[in-house]
């Protein structure tokens, strides 16, 4: 048992962070300027999208836990959400895809030639993927998906839809007939949130992912996405903590750095504890996903709920600690606040995940009780 990352895992995180730092507009004040398409190519050239692809399909064959720190760096660097979406989709295809899907898609993902957006939510249905009304029928997929990050720049869209009375995953080409995309107006234009209207959208051959499998594909998707979002949330939180501490060391008021005042010092300490706590939850969840551990869904929900709350709190505190500078547009702290808020609502907010934790906890208790009774 060891809860540490190895050198390769750490180095991966540092490399991604360094790469993103080369694109300062990503974290610059204007979210509308933060969607440089060159970032995708640079990440692909780095090999990021090959990491989760099995060696048989030309990838590196790593698991989610191996890329945990890289994902944290994607969060901290406000990378385009399509990077995370594609990694999540890769995990699903590699684990749940048919041999044909794997052979067709994964080599192209590995080289960065396929960007995949994730389309889960629909208006008026809350967060639960079981509630979707989008339907795959004989003449294609029909329904309206909302809040799909970076759908406009994706090559493919992985859609949660009803198929044969079950909720499943369908892969569409973004250019397919019957696919219409509209940008949302929203608080974080850099997330590229889109509404995707599917009107008998043409499906690809073998477009159903994992439908013949364990039936676990939707919960695997929600878990993987929750964990990746939790990791990115911790990236944001850790970066904001660093910004607060740096500011507290240099900003002088009343003749001393404000970090000498307990009101600032203690708040930084509480944030540091929250960041460590959130990382504990997130890293453990990454591990359960990598191992497909029985605790996976509970761990994923704990990470998503808790890390989302922490990122929100730390962003708020960071604005406060920066005082007047904190609420300027130019300093750009709002970029992290906005992104964190969008991510908080992606793939289930804390209320939805806390409810899911409770359901998982009670189910696990029932199993133990049954075992004792037997």
């Amino acid at each position: 048992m060891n809860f540490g990352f190895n050198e390769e895992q750490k180095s991966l995180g540092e490399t991604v962070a360094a790469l993103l730092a080369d694109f300062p507009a990503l974290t610059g004040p204007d979210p509308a300027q933060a969607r440089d398409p060159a970032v995708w190519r640079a990440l692909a050239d780095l090999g990021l999208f090959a990491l989760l692809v099995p060696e048989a399909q030309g990838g590196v064959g790593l698991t989610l836990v191996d890329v945990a720190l890289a994902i944290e760096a994607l969060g901290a660097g406000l990378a385009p959400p399509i990077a995370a979406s594609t990694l999540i989709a890769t995990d699903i295809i590699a684990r749940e895809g048919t041999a044909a899907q794997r052979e067709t898609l994964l080599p192209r993902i590995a080289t960065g030639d396929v960007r995949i957006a994730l389309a889960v939510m629909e208006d008026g249905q809350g967060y639960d993927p079981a509630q979707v009304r989008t339907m795959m029928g004989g003449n294609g997929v029909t329904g309206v998906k909302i809040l799909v990050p970076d759908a406009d720049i994706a090559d493919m869209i992985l859609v949660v839809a009803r198929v044969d009375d079950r909720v499943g995953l369908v892969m569409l080409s973004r250019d397919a007939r019957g696919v219409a995309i509209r940008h949302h107006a929203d608080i974080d234009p850099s997330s590229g949130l889109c509404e995707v209207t599917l009107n008998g959208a043409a499906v690809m051959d073998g477009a159903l992912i994992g439908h013949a499998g364990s039936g676990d594909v939707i919960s695997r998707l929600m878990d993987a996405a929750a964990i990746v979002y939790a990791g990115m949330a911790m990236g944001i939180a850790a970066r904001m903590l660093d910004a607060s501490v740096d500011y507290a060391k240099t900003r002088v008021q009343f003749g001393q750095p404000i970090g000498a005042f307990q009101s600032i010092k203690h708040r930084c300490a509480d944030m540091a504890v929250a960041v460590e706590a959130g990382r504990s939850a997130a890293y453990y969840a990454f591990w359960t996903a990598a191992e497909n551990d029985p605790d996976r869904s509970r761990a994923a929900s704990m990470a998503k709920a808790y890390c989302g709350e922490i990122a929100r709190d730390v962003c708020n505190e960071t604005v406060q600690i920066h005082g007047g500078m904190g609420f300027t547009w130019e300093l750009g702290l709002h970029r992290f606040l906005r992104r964190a808020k969008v991510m908080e609502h992606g793939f289930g907010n804390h209320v939805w995940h806390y409810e899911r934790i409770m359901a998982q906890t009670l189910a696990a208790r029932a199993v133990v009780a049954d075992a004792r009774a037997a």
Partner: protein
Amino acid sequence: MDFSYSPQEEGFRADLRAWLADALPSGWGETVFEPEDEDERAMFRLAWEKKLHAGGWSGINWPVEYGGRGATLVERAIFAEEMARVGAPEGLNIIGHNLAGSTILRHGTEAQKQYFLPRILSSDDVWCQGFSEPNAGSDLASVRTRAERRGDRFIVNGQKIWTSFAQYSQWCFALVRTDPDAPKHKGLSFLLIDMKSPGVSIRPLRQISGECEFNETFFDDVEVPVANIVGDINDGWRIAMTTLAYERGPEDALGRQIRFSQELDKLIGTVAATPRGDAMLIDDPIVRQKLARAVTQVEVMRLNAVRTFSKYLNGDDRGPDASVIKLYWSHAAQNMYEAAMDILGPTAPIAAPDPLSAGGGRFQLSYLQSKAFTIYSGSSEIQRNIIGERMLGLPR
């Protein structure tokens, strides 16, 4: 204790209500709204303020001799309630009415009162506030903007920041250093500066919400007549404390409370009309807890303000209670907007003009704006120091 109204007070209410029914555009708040554009909105608000003034409803609590109507505190509260009831527009010259006017009334010379007060009431002069500087935020007394006396003029040099609405202002009241050798609280003066003076320039400062309510204001050899000092030279800190007591006081809080209350009502209406699965979002017990907490805190904002009004009515002086009021409303309002973003669920991030934005997308902008509440007008940290030291008597 008595929350009921006298016949005179009810008469005041009836007059105002009748006037408002005439004065507001037909369809106001239902089909007719404020302009979206920031500049147009500012001009709309200025026009509304002038209309209020023409109707005799500007600065109602000021003495009649300076253009007010000598309204009581209770009438002032009724005024606020009625403005809320119809969702009346905000004003542009809030700083003029609440801060410049109140400070000049309290500490100004008779000549200053005669000149400035009517022009504030009529909003011929819009005012901005020149207190903070890049290195004098929480530590306000460390302002460096200098005013050197030369004959009957001060020559002002320096930079102010967070000067709200400077771009629309004719006048600025500023805290400046007139004695660089004195201890930092003892060398400050309170000047009234004509924004058209040569050497005044402004640069808009965009805030977190993307709006440009604030500015940086630069003073480059700006000449200010010595007659434009409020109080004595080097006595500016004491004058500024009066201004801050008004800025943080119940008048300001009551006006804000009304807007928060309207937004909360809109939130509840939105949630009540939002389907969630087979039911409505308002049926969710967790959502109801959050809303009820916001209802309570917004109501307490009002009660705090009214209670402090009553203290003044009963003869108490203005004191650190202004900090209690400001600390409370700023956090309560932040909590409310954070709760709104929570409650609105998956579509919370979707803003106007997206057709899917909940409640017309107003909560997203307010949410972002609310992050400034606990920072401007004295950060929460400063308010806690004031309360701890001046109200509770804890050591520095």
